[in-house]
């Protein structure tokens, strides 16, 4: 986990630093695409364990919709903007060990008992996340923008072990970057917790 932090920072710095030598628009407030909604379907992967009693890495699919609330962001002298993002992500975690007590002791070889079923916690699970984030965008170049996304999410966990479901809240934090390959669309990469994503942003 600690080894990943420098990676996240390096990714953000790298994305931010890339267009510095090109025609920067960061000093030109408001000089960015005008859109009301950014719609972004994406694929997800994460090395982090999810909240709850599941462990291991996960993968999934989802989408994010971000509604612009300030075209001129928190800092009046730079080209930033602010949006509120709502998401729906489904993720699968399949590398987890279940721990519990035996629900079914049955006679085995030599009359010794063998456990055939567990009740407990952990094990493989599916999650649905509903994140709500504050998206702070920095428009660096005609083709590049970066953003930070702190927020909070609700999750629903479904455990394979006993078909049980549970709800909870999870902190959400991402840094990301976009490559604007056209006026209406961008390739978007997001790193952070609970999952990393790569998707296509459509500016509507």
């Amino acid at each position: 986990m600690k080894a990943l932090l420098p990676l996240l920072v390096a990714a953000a710095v790298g994305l931010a630093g890339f267009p510095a030598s090109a025609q920067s628009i960061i000093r030109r407030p408001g000089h960015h695409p005008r859109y009301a909604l950014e719609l972004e379907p994406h694929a997800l992967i994460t090395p982090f364990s999810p909240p709850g009693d599941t462990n291991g890495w996960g993968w999934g699919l989802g989408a994010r919709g971000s509604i612009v609330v300030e075209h001129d962001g928190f800092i009046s002298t730079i080209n930033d903007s602010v949006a509120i993002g709502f998401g729906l992500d489904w993720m699968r975690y399949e590398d987890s060990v279940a721990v519990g007590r035996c629900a079914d002791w049955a006679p085995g070889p030599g009359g010794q008992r063998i456990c055939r079923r567990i009740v407990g916690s952990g094990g493989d699970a599916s999650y649905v996340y509903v994140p709500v984030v504050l998206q702070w965008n920095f428009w660096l170049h005609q083709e590049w923008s970066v953003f930070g996304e702190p927020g909070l999410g609700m999750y629903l966990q479904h455990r394979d072990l006993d078909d049980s479901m549970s709800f909870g809240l999870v902190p959400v934090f991402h840094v990301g970057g976009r490559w604007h390959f056209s006026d209406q669309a961008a390739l978007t990469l997001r790193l952070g917790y609970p999952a990393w994503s790569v998707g296509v942003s459509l500016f509507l």
Partner: protein
Amino acid sequence: MLLEILSFADSSRSKPVNGASWRRALLGRTAVVALVLLGGAWLAAACGGDRSCYDSEDCDCFGREECILGCHHDGCDLACSHTASACGAICEDDCQFLCHNTNHCSTLCGDDCAHRCHEVATCAAECGDRCIYECHDVSECAVRVGKNSSIDCRSVALCDVTCDGACEVTCSNVSRCNVRCPPGLVRRSHGGGRWTCE
């Protein structure tokens, strides 16, 4: 570029402020504080530790009354020890399980498993083909294995093995070594406590 952003953020603070820019500055600071707090919460959540059960005293099984581990994918590496009554594993193929210092060890797994049970009262296992099972310093060891398996009992009162195919059983310092072969195969003694079904 980040430095550029930060220096602009700093210079914007020293300028005279009207209502709109004051609001913006306040929102900006609120966002930074929220970001720091959420970053901390994220780190706390992500570094919560590995709750899976490998051979360590930090394992979730340690000190429990009974602990059964379930791993529903291939290649699991599990361990359980120091429980009051029982430890167990239910796993798929290519599973490794180490079980010791409890009263009873139970193992249920697929093919290509490697299990070791020691310093307990009783060990019981059912595993598939090519199972390697080692049992030592145990009162009773009862195992059912698939074909091409290998069982090693050492310092055991009773070693009771049922083979569902060709297998090899070694009993050393064992009071009673029972080896049962499936129909069609014959049990052979090779001396020195070594038995085969072939």
